[in-house]
């Protein structure tokens, strides 16, 4: 039951993009089409879960064990960068169709702050490994939910007449604001 609450909270109540402002760059960058939004979401789900497991293990068995916690930021970002490269190489060999679907989004993920953000949050919240994985899955589903929703709206917006100065990013931000307003309605849905 705990895990279910954790997932619902990560998707709706504390949505990573609209409530916690992590991963805004891909949120604004690849949300022009629903199909690219789905591809990006898949890549984020994959890398976020892997990265959270890796960084969690490194934190527990290397950083905590040798009391070098101050190296957290450096080691995490290196792990994530290396992981993304590795995933790219392995996918290319093992599953070419999956690579074709996710390939172009993978390099973008290294600078996606949602990945590093979740890795650090999990440690700050003192989750165990199982909880961390569930949290990572929930968070990336929340990211996917917001991204696909937003892409759908943006596709429709192509057909609308928009004032000159508002075109492009400004109107996208305001739409995101209204979307965030809607998500604000979920506050208090589950308590953790």
């Amino acid at each position, binding site marked *: 039951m705990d895990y279910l609450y954790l997932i619902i909270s990560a998707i709706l109540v504390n949505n990573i993009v*609209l*409530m*916690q*402002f*992590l*991963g*805004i*760059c891909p949120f*604004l960058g690849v949300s022009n089409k629903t199909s690219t939004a789905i591809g990006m979401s898949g890549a984020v789900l994959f890398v976020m879960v892997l990265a959270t497991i890796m960084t969690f293990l490194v934190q527990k068995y290397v950083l905590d064990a040798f009391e070098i916690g*101050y*190296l*957290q*930021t*450096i080691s995490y*970002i*290196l792990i994530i*960068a290396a992981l993304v490269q590795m995933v790219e190489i392995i996918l290319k060999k093992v599953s070419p169709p999956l690579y074709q679907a996710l390939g172009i989004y993978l390099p973008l993920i*290294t*600078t*996606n*702050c949602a990945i*590093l*953000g979740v890795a*650090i*949050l999990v440690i*700050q919240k003192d989750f165990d490994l199982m909880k961390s994985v569930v949290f990572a899955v929930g968070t990336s589903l929340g990211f996917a939910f917001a991204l696909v929703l937003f892409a759908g709206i943006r596709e429709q917006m192509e057909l609308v007449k928009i*004032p000159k*100065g*508002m075109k492009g*990013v*400004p*109107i*996208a*931000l*305001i739409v*995101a*604001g*209204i979307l*965030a*307003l809607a*998500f*604000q309605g979920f506050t208090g849905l589950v308590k953790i």
Partner: protein
Amino acid sequence: MGNFKIFTNGFVKENPVFVLVLGTCPTLAVTTSAMNGLGMGLATTFVLFMSNIVISMVKSAIPDKVRIPAFVVIIASFVTIIDLSMNAYVNDLHKSLGIFIPLIVVNCIVLGRAEAFASKNNVLKSFIDGLGMGIGFTIALVMLGSVREFLGGNAIFGHKIIEADGMLVFVLAPGAFICYGFLMALMNKLSKKLK
């Protein structure tokens, strides 16, 4: 390009927040008040010019293929320095900025300037560029923070301006997106007029 021009480049013409739209995550997240915006802006400025200096110094020693990981390690070291020093000296600010201080590492402005400027120019120019970009980022953050604090709590930098209840929504998440969107539209309009 003259040194002065490089310095002022980041203020309006290539403002990282309003024109280049880089580093949106901290921009939206920490600007609940003008003070938080200022703190975040100064922390990022420090990382920007320090990493620009070091990268322009060691650029010839780094092989082209591994330059991105090398840059990231340099940036991450300075982020760790600012993270630990802020925790020690300005603990309250450190608490309210929270997770977004370590996340300066993945702020696209820092890596973007390293890749686009510091890896091609000498130390002095890189320093000036980092400082200018940082100041542009700080100005934008303080602007956004002031607007949100004013609308949300009728105050700027903690000083009450009108005696009334604020609109709470502007301090919460939706207000961040909406204020940022309108400010960016305003900047677009103004910069078009200047041309």
